[in-house]
């Protein structure tokens, strides 16, 4: 999948879909979502095609990483961070597996 589409789709999932949870922070969820997309999209693609690693571990790492990012950078409400990290990553992972499978 081309780089531009990975970043755009991950931004939609991690930034736009997460925005209703943090709408009071205005544009900041979008900024964090874009940086998450920029960091994780190409990283997962590289791991997927260049290594034989079992993808359960990167996915668990990404969920924990997203939780930390949402919790520390956006709002210190743990349930929102857990919902965002698990639910939006699930959508992201299924999408990732479908387009790269």
């Amino acid at each position: 999948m081309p780089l531009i589409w990975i970043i755009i789709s991950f931004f939609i999932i991690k930034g736009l879909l997460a925005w209703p949870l943090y709408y009071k922070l205005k544009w900041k969820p979008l900024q964090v979502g874009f940086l998450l997309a920029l960091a994780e999209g190409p990283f997962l693609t590289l791991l997927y095609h260049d290594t034989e690693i079992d993808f359960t571990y990167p996915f668990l790492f990404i969920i924990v990483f997203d939780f930390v990012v949402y919790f520390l950078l956006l709002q210190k409400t743990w349930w929102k961070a857990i919902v965002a990290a698990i639910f939006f990553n699930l959508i992201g992972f299924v999408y990732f597996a479908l387009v790269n499978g």
Partner: protein
Amino acid sequence: MKHFLFLCIFFFTSLSIFADAGFSIRREHAVSIFSFEGINNLKGYKLIQTHVGFYTDTSHKEPYTNLGRIITDDNYTITTQEGGRHWEESDRDIYLNVVDMLTGKTTDSLKYFAKDYNIHFKIKAVVNGKLQFTADSSKAVYQYSLLNPEESKATYSRNRLIFIACSALGFLFLIGLFIRNKNKTSK
């Protein structure tokens, strides 16, 4: 309590998806490209690519192996994609046969395992039915693309570096945001 139940549902849904979502799908890796030079030196003989395997791809579309063809000129390439939904293990084996054009009999045969490497054949001649050649190999790179999948083969290595750079840049900016937030809260 309401939040706890909500989170439990998410957690168990995620576990079920981990078990099923894409982990069993074969992952695409670098494409092995076989190219040829000096096909004109096969005087009186022809080189045929044949395929022996459980799976036969009749579409002849790249990047899956193109099968059962006469290699007629130096532009001919064999591309073997490892992984993907239609891929089988047997697709990695590349069979090349040298056939005498007068008798129609196979005088020499080669078998190559197409994985991780690109191979460039330089054919010198055919002596007593045996192919005289050298084969240069180079590391295969996955076809990473930036804007569309039709990009030139020459850019695959550069694209891989851009993927790494983008990812590093994203993580660096996130670390920058963490530091800025920490400084703000400590003031």
